[in-house]
């Protein structure tokens, strides 16, 4: 990857969509609570964001910030018991939060596709690649087995799998990690969804393969006009491929705006911290800067600003609850955002 941030501005992928069009997905005040037996904890609190048609939006944050939970909530893939979800998720004029299981089944795989982090375990080991893609097609379209198989072959060809006709009769175990992730992408896109949720799609792969898979995702998204919600902890990948990004911290959105602006001058100390932790090739420091401390668990949330215990700019007002406030084209959840000038990526 090296110094990827330099390319942030020149990267044309997923150029900002016109703001006049209605958003494809509009999430408002999404909260998720779990019952752990004794009490309710809320690992996701009032998450709001929009994704425009064809747009590539990144969600960044450390592990345990609620990124994956946000993705799973959109598709209603949370456990059925001991879990409560509130808020609104307007998708193509339909509130996903109000849909029941059978309604959601028509959305999953058809209108919203999803790719998971672990290609090694996300495919069923005892069915062939072809079976797994074919059944997705047949779950959503009344087509013959033959026709569904043809579509599977086309989908595999589209993700750059050599000899897709052989691949359909192969089992996942005979494919490499990169190939399996291509199969996952083919499976997620075979029904031509309007939105693709990619939850850390490259984290489990070799670095050389990561770039290939990202390029493939962006290329397919651009070609088919599919919007992509890209979840990662790799800011470099976001800089390369996304038009807009959200920073999540401890179950909240703390910053939201165009990638180029945020990278030049982050509005939230946490985003600035993430940027500062990126390795820089040009000036090798003796020690890689990092954010001290760790993400608070849902059991011990700080009462005011959730980032305050780890923030180096903390002041008395940070003791109070923080709101996500507009700042130009962005939103920032920090009461000191107007006073602070935070260091951006060193371009």
């Amino acid at each position, binding site marked *: 990857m090296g110094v990827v941030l330099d390319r942030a501005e020149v990267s044309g992928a997923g150029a900002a969509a016109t703001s006049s069009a209605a958003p494809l997905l509009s999430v408002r005040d999404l909260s998720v609570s779990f019952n752990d037996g004794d009490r309710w904890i809320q690992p996701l609190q009032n998450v709001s964001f929009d994704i425009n048609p064809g747009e590539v939006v990144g969600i960044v944050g450390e592990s345990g910030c609620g990124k994956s939970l946000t993705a799973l909530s959109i598709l209603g893939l949370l456990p059925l018991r001991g879990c409560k979800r509130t808020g609104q998720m307007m998708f193509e004029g339909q509130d996903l939060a109000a849909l029941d299981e059978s309604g959601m089944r028509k959305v999953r795989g*058809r209108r919203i596709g999803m790719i*998971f982090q672990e290609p090694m375990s996300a495919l069923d*080991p*005892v069915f062939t690649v072809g079976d797994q893609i074919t059944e*997705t097609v047949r779950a959503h379209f009344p087509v013959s087995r033959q026709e569904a198989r043809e579509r599977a072959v086309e989908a595999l060809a589209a993700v750059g799998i050599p000899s897709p006709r052989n691949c359909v009769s192969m089992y996942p175990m005979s494919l490499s990690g990169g190939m399996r992730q291509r199969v996952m992408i083919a499976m997620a896109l075979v029904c031509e969804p309007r939105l693709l949720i990619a939850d850390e799609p490259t984290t489990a792969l070799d670095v050389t393969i990561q770039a290939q898979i990202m390029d493939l995702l962006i290329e397919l998204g651009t070609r088919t006009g599919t919007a992509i919600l890209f979840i990662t902890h790799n800011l470099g990948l976001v800089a390369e491929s996304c038009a807009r990004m959200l920073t999540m911290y401890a179950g909240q959105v703390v910053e939201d705006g165009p990638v180029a602006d945020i990278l030049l001058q982050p509005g939230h100390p946490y985003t600035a911290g993430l940027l500062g932790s990126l390795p820089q090739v040009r000036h090798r420091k003796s020690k890689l800067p990092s954010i001290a401390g760790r993400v608070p668990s849902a059991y011990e949330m700080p009462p005011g600003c959730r980032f305050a215990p780890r923030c180096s700019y903390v002041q008395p007002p940070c003791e109070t609850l923080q709101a996500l406030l507009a700042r130009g084209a962005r939103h920032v959840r920090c009461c000191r955002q107007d006073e602070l000038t935070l260091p951006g990526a060193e371009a």
Partner: protein
Amino acid sequence: MSRLPALIGRRLWQLLPIIIFATFVVFSLLQLVPGDPAVTLAGDYASKERIEEIRKLYGLDQPLIVQYGVWLLHAVKGDLGKSLLSSAPVIELIAQRLPNTILIATYSLIIATLIGVPLGVLAATRVGSRIDTLVTSVASLGVALPSFWLAIILVANLSLGLHLFPATGAKPLLVDPKGALLSATLPAVALAVGVIAELARQVRSALIEVLSSQHYRTLRAKGLSPMSMLWKHGLRNVSVTLLTLLGLQVNRLFSGAVVIEAVFAIPGAGSLVAYSAINKDFPVVQGVVLVLVVIVIAVNLAVDIFNALLDPRAASS
């Protein structure tokens, strides 16, 4: 899949040492049984000379390894010898008795699969519910219950009490199918209870693992229906565990049959081997053991082949 013939070949080669080992162990163990077959053969009030003569005649004076070698040589040619007691060819005795045992074992396995697997699925899809708790605790009980005790309870209530089933005996399946099934029902049920419990427990735990796996979550993300997820992907994923388990249960059923056939006075292979062992009828015991070993190995081979067909991972290992 191309590994399948290799797998079969490998298993057939393994068959040979297992058969030799099993029959030799039984042959040696029979020497420890108190009593002398020559004395039995000579009948009551036989003279010492007569007993010696018989010992020579039957080769019983030879060292153990020679006796075994002679038996094995004949067995390879398809001659399992004659019963020391009735002089009937061992092959014939087995042919008469074995069908009864196979009927009970098969019947029992079918009952157990039809009840045990759905119970396991029911519990696994409702983990922590009352149904799950019930299935789990009844299964623990079922595993612990001795089949002969169950058999006695069943006979006391359903045969002697309600006269629903015959208390003892067996009928030939081909001549009187209804009577044969009716006679086999109680022994099959008595044997099945333990197998049901084992199947329910193992299917439950295997299925729980599959249901919480990442690839199962992928199925939901693809928009599949819960039914297709469970019956297509869930069961296919546990089928290897299930088949392996069924193979083990076949072994268990054949050994359980020895006791059950005694309780129900069924002329099966189990009671044949028990009676012959007590009376030191070596050739019969050896013959039955040989046939049972071959059956058990054949069942395990079939399990391996099906596993290889069902799970690509099994074929390559």
